[in-house]
């Protein structure tokens, strides 16, 4: 998904009277989600009978909508001093909000599409609730963005969209990990700010606890889905895929988090510490369904992540430089990032056996 900045005036001109003047938007951001298809027939064939008991409990919980009242602005939502904020921090905070909103929004689009196309009652019900949650999360972040003077433009619908294709199992692995890592990211920040309330420079962090419980349940649903077919987590090839996804997601997170030094400094969070903490929680949780855990305490783990991060920086610098020299520098940086990734990928994992009962409750 790409976020493109359009000019404020452009949007105001297009929208005329309904333009969000109250938000005093100084800039606007066009949400531009990608659209996906998958093998919907295969998804229709999913039979949740082997996990029926746990499935029904989870769906009943989603149906009861425990967080319905949570996403409201209460007196706890204190005023943010946007004008007094260091411009670099503001930039990174806005980037954090925009990318979070985009992620929630694309989750909503994906889940809604799966609900629409499916014919399997259990699956449709699940995706319906998850789309509801993600739209709510996106709305909440959008409101925080309005306060920051950033308007979100949903005009993408009338632009041409090409639909790409993912195999269902790739959707399970990727979304399972991203829901669980989303939980771990939100709860780690929340717990940190509980200890260091003076570092809470924006009220949205106060909402992270109940919020991450939604993400946790979404992850639970994918864990149950994967349990309906043992091959998904036990076949030799699929184990390689799982290792690939875990490694790729962790490495990407490391690189991206390092793009926001001011944001983390303001929170009083050391990025390396934070990321390791998130990996540890995610890895521990993921043992509910994956038969392995990445060895993030391996002596080569951190140095290799750092190497990949440096390579990405060089890649970007080379791109800006341009010309033949820039190209060569970019290729060399890409090669070193690739080698770093390969190094992480061949690192031995810690094997584990998923427990008989898959369900977990948020425990951090």
């Amino acid at each position, binding site marked *: *998904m790409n*976020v493109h900045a359009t000019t404020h005036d452009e*949007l105001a001109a*297009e929208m005329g*009277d*309904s*333009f*969000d003047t*109250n*938000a005093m938007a100084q800039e606007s951001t066009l*949400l531009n989600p*990608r*659209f*996906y*298809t998958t093998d919907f027939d295969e998804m229709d064939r999913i039979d949740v009978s082997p996990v029926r008991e746990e499935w029904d409990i989870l769906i009943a919980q989603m149906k009861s909508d425990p967080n319905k009242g949570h996403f409201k602005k209460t007196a706890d939502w204190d005023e943010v001093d946007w004008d007094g904020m260091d411009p670099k921090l503001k*930039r990174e905070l806005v*980037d*954090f909000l925009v*990318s979070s*909103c*985009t*992620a*929630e*929004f*694309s989750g*909503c*689009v994906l889940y*809604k599409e799966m609900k629409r196309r499916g014919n399997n009652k259990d699956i449709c019900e699940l995706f319906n609730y998850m789309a509801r949650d993600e*739209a*709510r999360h*996106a*709305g*909440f972040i*959008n*409101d925080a963005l309005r306060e920051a003077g950033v308007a979100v433009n*949903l005009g993408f*619908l*009338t*632009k*041409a*969209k*090409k*639909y*790409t*294709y*993912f*195999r269902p199992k790739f*959707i399970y692995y*990727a*979304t399972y*990990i*991203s829901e669980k890592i*989303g939980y771990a990211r939100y709860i780690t920040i929340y717990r940190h700010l509980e200890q260091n309330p003076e570092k809470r420079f924006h009220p949205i962090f106060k909402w992270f606890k109940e919020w991450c419980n939604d993400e946790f349940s979404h992850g639970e649903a994918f864990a149950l889905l994967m349990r309906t077919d043992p091959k998904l987590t036990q076949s030799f090839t699929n184990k390689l895929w799982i290792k690939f996804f875990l490694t790729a*997601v962790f490495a*990407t997170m490391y690189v*991206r988090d390092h*793009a*926001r030094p001011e944001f983390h400094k303001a929170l009083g969070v050391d990025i390396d510490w934070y990321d390791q903490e998130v990996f540890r929680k995610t890895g521990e949780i993921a043992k509910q369904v994956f038969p392995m855990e990445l060895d993030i305490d391996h002596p080569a783990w951190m140095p290799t992540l750092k190497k990949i991060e440096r390579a990405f*920086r060089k890649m*970007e610098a080379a791109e800006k430089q341009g010309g033949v020299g820039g190209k060569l520098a970019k290729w060399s940086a890409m090669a070193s990032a690739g080698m770093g990734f390969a190094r992480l990928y061949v690192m031995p994992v810690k094997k584990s056996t998923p427990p008989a009962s898959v369900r977990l409750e948020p425990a951090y």
Partner: protein
Amino acid sequence: MSLFTRKVEQVPCTVEVSHRFEALHAHVRFNDGSTIEPGDEVLVQGPPVLAGWGEVITEDRTAVITRANALERLWTRLTGDFEVMELCEFSFSEEITL
């Protein structure tokens, strides 16, 4: 389906855009039950559907579906998976240096 040529269909659709505090979403539904297959392209006709703050807009529009030809469909099925990491963009930004 032809190997090389693309078929173009005009399909009635309903777009719904919610720009409210409670929910931010935008969806297209094809009223005749048309489904989208890998590699197809969809263009909703008319001016942008722009919901102001607090608004939900539901509108009937026409969508032009450009069907992928057999080669494109196969290609999308084979290569789409490479983009799967997009699904993991939880609170990530595209740029490395902001």
